[in-house]
């Protein structure tokens, strides 16, 4: 394949990479956009957790007893223990006898419930320098310390959120690599798109719905792509950067691992935070006192704040230290201004005041993607940006189909209809799967399998949408779009309304109550968005159905496709 000019090469890249990876990118953008409100979707999905966000609770009274009840995860133990344990030192330590090495807790200004975790140490590790931990993670009610039952699936933060960066394909982390490749090709598509689009600024505000269908689709594609160009570019790039050291560019875990470990130990000896356990047992002093001291120190520097992240390293050892991070609610960086105390007596070890510029830059870039800050307008703007991304990809698909459908119909090729069926699954199918999951969440009975059933219903609805697209694909009539479009959009409007209704019936939190009587914006917000979605889908479905019926009247299916081309092109 030879290209006449670099511009042709760019067009080729944009078309084909955009088409193939567009399906993945659609998932990333749509569920990424939903993740902006992941905590709110969690509240909607788990009615028992519908109460106000809580600050970090008392460590001594609430967290420590909760930690002491936790046991290493069975599945992780089975998988990792044989890899970590040195068989020469004797038999493996049983799961519930593993000693504790670290505690952590993380919360944001939007969390009523608290995520906590324990890292258990492997007593006889194969590699002594590595971070040999078997974990236990859970979510507790910070008011009482009671565990939130595991069967309650956090649809927002444990399903939609990981879906947008790992596709929830756990096997060999393959989902992360697919998304990484798609994100890289998103960057390629953006640069090549700008290269192709010569009138970037002249046509910045241009959308001409009255022109030909092909032209207006292209206008919309350019508009949605260009107006949020910095957003699209930086979200794809920062997504890559967030996982760079773990997955995409693991230089310091592979090739430079010796240097990494040597420098880490050196740094620990310089800043006074012990890198290793000493082997001398020591009790843990009151962490609450350390938290008070940390808050006093922050206030002294004119940045009073709450605790966002708390971690105790080397638990039970003389080298134990407690790290307290300030919640970055008013900053872009997630957490910061760490203050470290000696665990055994609570004396101050280290205050991390100033970061090197490059690390601040990194915190800004990852923080702008992970957005744990408190800024509701920006959150809505992000949702808008994400949906613009979806619109851009979807119009890209439509342009691809529209451009080729007459030729394909004439030549008896199936290509554009295949793309149409896949595009259906990636546009309306995503919405259908999401809504079906929400409705299922409200209707499924209590039980251990509840979480799994919700996931299966999500996947089932998605697959059904794809199959429906294939069944309804019409190869013989190039002029009209698949009837599956308006049928699925009708279904979307029904399911969205049903979700609001079932929430009102099963929990009693109808909009009147969540908006006026006992305001609870997290649930009210999800309900309102669902209602807007239902309304928008109804209008769209009516428009699409009308257009489809007009196309059917204009073009009788009994005629050969080639005879219809002139009528359809108008």
């Amino acid at each position, binding site marked *: 394949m030879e290209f006449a000019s670099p511009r042709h090469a760019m067009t080729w890249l944009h078309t084909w990479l955009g088409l193939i990876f567009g399906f993945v990118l659609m998932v990333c953008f749509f569920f990424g956009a939903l993740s902006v409100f992941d905590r709110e979707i969690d509240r909607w999905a788990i009615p028992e957790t519908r109460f106000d966000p809580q600050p970090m609770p008392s460590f001594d009274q609430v967290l420590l007893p909760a930690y002491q009840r936790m046991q290493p995860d069975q599945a992780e133990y089975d998988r990792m223990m044989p890899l970590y344990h040195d068989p020469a030192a004797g038999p493996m330590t049983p799961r519930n006898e593993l000693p504790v090495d670290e505690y952590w807790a993380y919360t944001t200004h939007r969390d009523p419930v608290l995520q906590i975790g324990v890292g258990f140490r492997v007593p006889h590790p194969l590699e002594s320098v590595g971070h040999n931990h078997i974990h236990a993670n859970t979510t507790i009610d910070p008011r009482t310390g009671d565990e939130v039952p595991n069967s309650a699936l956090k649809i927002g933060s444990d399903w939609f959120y990981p879906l947008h960066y790992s596709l929830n394909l756990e096997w060999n982390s393959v989902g992360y690599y697919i998304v990484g490749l798609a994100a890289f090709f998103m960057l390629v598509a953006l640069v090549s798109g700008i290269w192709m689009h010569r009138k970037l600024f002249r046509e*910045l505000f241009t959308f001409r719905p009255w022109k030909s269908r092909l032209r207006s689709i292209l206008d919309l594609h350019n508009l949605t792509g260009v*107006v949020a160009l910095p*957003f699209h570019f930086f979200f794809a790039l920062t997504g890559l950067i967030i996982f760079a050291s773990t997955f995409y560019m693991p230089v310091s875990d592979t090739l430079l691992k010796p240097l990494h470990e040597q420098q880490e130990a050196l740094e620990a000896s310089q800043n006074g935070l012990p890198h290793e356990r000493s082997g001398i047992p020591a009790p843990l002093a009151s962490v609450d006192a350390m938290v008070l001291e940390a808050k006093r120190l922050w206030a002294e520097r004119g940045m009073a704040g709450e605790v966002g992240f708390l971690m105790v390293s080397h638990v039970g050892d003389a080298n134990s230290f407690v790290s307290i991070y300030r919640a970055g609610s*008013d900053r872009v960086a997630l957490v910061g201004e760490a203050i470290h105390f000696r665990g055994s007596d609570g004396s101050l070890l280290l205050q991390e005041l100033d970061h090197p510029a490059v690390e601040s830059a990194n915190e800004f870039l990852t923080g702008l993607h992970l957005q744990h800050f408190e800024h509701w307008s920006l959150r809505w703007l992000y949702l808008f940006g994400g949906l*613009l991304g979806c619109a851009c990809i979807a119009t890209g698909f439509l342009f691809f189909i529209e451009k080729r459908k007459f030729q394909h119909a004439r030549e008896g090729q199936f290509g554009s209809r295949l793309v149409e069926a896949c595009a259906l699954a990636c546009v309306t199918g995503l919405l259908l799967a999401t809504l079906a999951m929400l409705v299922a969440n409200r209707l499924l009975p209590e039980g251990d399998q509840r979480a799994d059933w919700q996931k299966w219903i999500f996947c089932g609805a998605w697959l059904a949408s794809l199959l429906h697209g294939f069944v309804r694909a019409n190869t013989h009539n190039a002029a009209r779009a698949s009837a599956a479009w308006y049928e699925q959009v009708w279904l979307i409007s029904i399911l969205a309304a049903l979700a609001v209704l079932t929430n009102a019936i099963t929990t009693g939190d109808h909009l009147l109550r969540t908006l006026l009587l006992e305001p609870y914006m997290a649930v009210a917000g999800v309900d309102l968005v669902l209602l807007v979605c239902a309304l928008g889908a109804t209008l769209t479905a009516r428009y699409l159905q009308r257009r489809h019926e007009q196309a059917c009247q204009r073009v009788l299916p009994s005629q050969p496709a080639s005879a219809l081309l002139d009528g359809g092109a108008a």
Partner: protein
Amino acid sequence: MNTAFWLITACLLMLVGMIWLALAKPVHWKQVLGAQANYGRHPVKALQRAGAISLLLSALACLAADHPSMAVLVWIMLLALSTFITAMILSWRPHWLQPLITVRRLTQS
């Protein structure tokens, strides 16, 4: 309360600025004014300058509302939102924008 005030100001300034920038382009100027566009001069430079200043002021309003690191993000996202809104008004309801031009003309004369 203060934050909300500055954010709303930033939104409005950004939207107005974007509309002026759009009107500096002959196509959109004609779209809004219709046949009237043929009478009188099209003040391209003035519109561009007004738009740029409005965008700048909106950046200042963002800075007044938030920590600078956050203000940058808000400004960039507002840029996207108002460009999109401007394009949508221009294609569906261009006549809504006539008052904005009148204001410009008054200040000019």
